């Protein structure tokens, strides 16, 4: 009944109704709607102010101070930034983080895309469902549990993984005890945990490609490979673009798996920026210095994201 009326008539009916039912005729309808609007966003707005806006501004400000948490902060200008740029350990963690982000993103996004294309082209739906579930399961397990589990399985002399590798004729691998391998292990574990998430994103992208495109291509005599490179991959670029952005943002903030599995070692081989930040803030109480690290990390992430968005226009194919 209502939908049969014209919007104008409805508007008039609403106004008439509200004019008669108004609890307080002194407050206009517009004002009442605005009050309701503020009321409904109040919890989110309050939380945004208290736990985001104020902390972000003071976090940025804190990077100009020297502060040990207990005595009064000292204004030091850009000294923290200068000190940070010469801090060998910080530069080392920055390099570790960047390399981790590079390899983990490549592994997660690349592998995720290929697994998704593979799953999508299988014809048996039961197998599709099984594979999708199997690859996604690690994603719901907490990183702490994953790290503890792999710490056990990857032990050098008594670990199961090395035992079975040795049965295959491969020498024992110092998974967590050599610097190079510890780094690789952390990347591999990250891919194990997250690849299913990216597989899902790509599967969603694949499902949104219209079937007619493939049918038309088959009519034109396009083979499997041509269909993959000329239809599937170009139309997956929006998913790829999105995956690269969130994978990189996440990887630059990596902390938990290293904290649990290697505690940054051996040496500083797997120490990341956030691990150093955590130690500076809550171990040494160099609050200003830690805040400076956070700012630098934020600027790097922001710069990378903006660059990706800019470059995205050139290679992402939007329908």
């Amino acid at each position, binding site marked *: 009944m209502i939908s049969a009326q014209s919007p104008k008539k409805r508007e008039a009916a609403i106004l008439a109704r509200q004019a008669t039912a108004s609890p307080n005729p002194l407050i206009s309808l517009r004002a009442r709607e605005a009050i309701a609007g503020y009321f409904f966003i109040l919890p989110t707005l309050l939380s945004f102010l208290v736990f985001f806006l104020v902390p972000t501004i003071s976090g940025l400000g804190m990077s100009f101070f020297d502060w040990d948490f207990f005595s009064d902060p000292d204004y030091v200008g850009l000294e923290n930034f200068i000190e940070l740029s010469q801090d060998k350990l910080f530069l080392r963690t920055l390099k570790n983080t960047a390399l981790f982000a590079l390899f983990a993103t490549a592994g997660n996004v690349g592998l995720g895309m290929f697994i998704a294309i593979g799953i999508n082209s299988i014809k048996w739906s039961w197998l599709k469902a099984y594979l999708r579930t199997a690859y996604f399961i690690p994603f719901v397990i907490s990183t702490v549990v994953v790290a503890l*589990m792999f*710490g056990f399985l990857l032990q050098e002399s008594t670990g199961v993984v090395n035992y079975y590798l040795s049965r295959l004729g491969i020498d024992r691998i110092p998974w967590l005890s050599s610097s190079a391998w510890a780094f690789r292990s952390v990347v591999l574990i990250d891919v194990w945990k997250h690849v299913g998430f990216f597989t899902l*994103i790509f599967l969603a992208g694949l499902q949104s490609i219209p079937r007619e495109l493939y049918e038309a291509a088959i009519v034109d005599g396009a083979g499997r490979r041509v269909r993959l490179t000329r239809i599937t991959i170009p139309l997956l670029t929006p998913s790829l673009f999105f995956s690269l952005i969130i994978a990189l943002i996440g990887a630059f903030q990596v902390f938990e798996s290293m904290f649990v599995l290697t505690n940054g070692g051996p040496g500083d081989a797997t120490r990341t920026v956030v691990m150093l930040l955590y130690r500076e803030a809550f171990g040494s109480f160099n609050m200003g210095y830690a805040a400076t690290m956070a700012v630098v990390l934020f600027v790097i992430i922001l710069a990378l994201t903006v660059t990706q968005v800019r470059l995205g226009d050139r290679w992402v194919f939007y329908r």
Partner: protein
Amino acid sequence: MTSVALSYGNPTFQDKLRHNWRAWLANAALALPLILGSLIMFLPLLWAVSFSFGQPHEFFTLPPPVIPSAIRLDNYHGVFERVDFFRFFLNSVFVTACVTIAQLITCSMGGYAFARLRFPGKRIIFILFLASMMVPQHVTLIPVFIIIRGLGLYNNLGALIVPYATSVFGAFLLKQFFETIPDELEDAAKIDGAGFLQIYWRVMLPLAGPPLATLAILTFNSSWNNFFWPLIFINSADKMTLPLGMIYLRGQDGVTNSGVLMAAIVLNLLPVLIFFMIFQRRLVEGVTLSGLKGI
């Protein structure tokens, strides 16, 4: 002529069979590496289960038994002897339940306002909200630490709940949904004299089941697995949630890399996997949705 028509129009039984065989083989060839890959996903979990039932001396025998010689619960007893595992579990349940319920309320309220109400400053506030999703939480870490202490929530489960009682992402998710509800429904309620609160409660919320379920499951998962926040705000064992409790357990005598730790891991996996089995479809939907529309 007839033979051509036959072989093109109606493939013989043999043709069909041959074609099916080739399709089957192509499928199998494609599936094989994917199936092997999926075993890599499962194997670590199966090993953890197997070792959790094993005997301490079995860890040092080679080959490590894949199936333990006997099902023994010693390791599970070991977990409960060393830490109050049940307390960790209850804390996790409490925190996760509070965070999830709070977000369902606050995010649906925010989403409703952004989608259906006109008020000054709406656009600016919304853009600020979106921008906040891109800032890493470590920038806010130290000031939030001070605020939490100021609120008297240090070493209190409230520290794990209050900052997570709402989320910009959730409000955004619900806004996207509420925008798809036709105006007629809302107008009908207005003609009947409903106020905004009634429209939100009687018209909007009953329709928002699917996106609310998605939000609930995503929130549940991230709250249940949250580790960084408890690490900073909780320092006594009776306030720990499961992830932090696991690290606490590892620090106890003789636990590092032992069957006891594996037993605790299995106790951790069990509820998560049950949760996953029940809500798999929604979870997959939620991840896909957040993946496509999240930012």
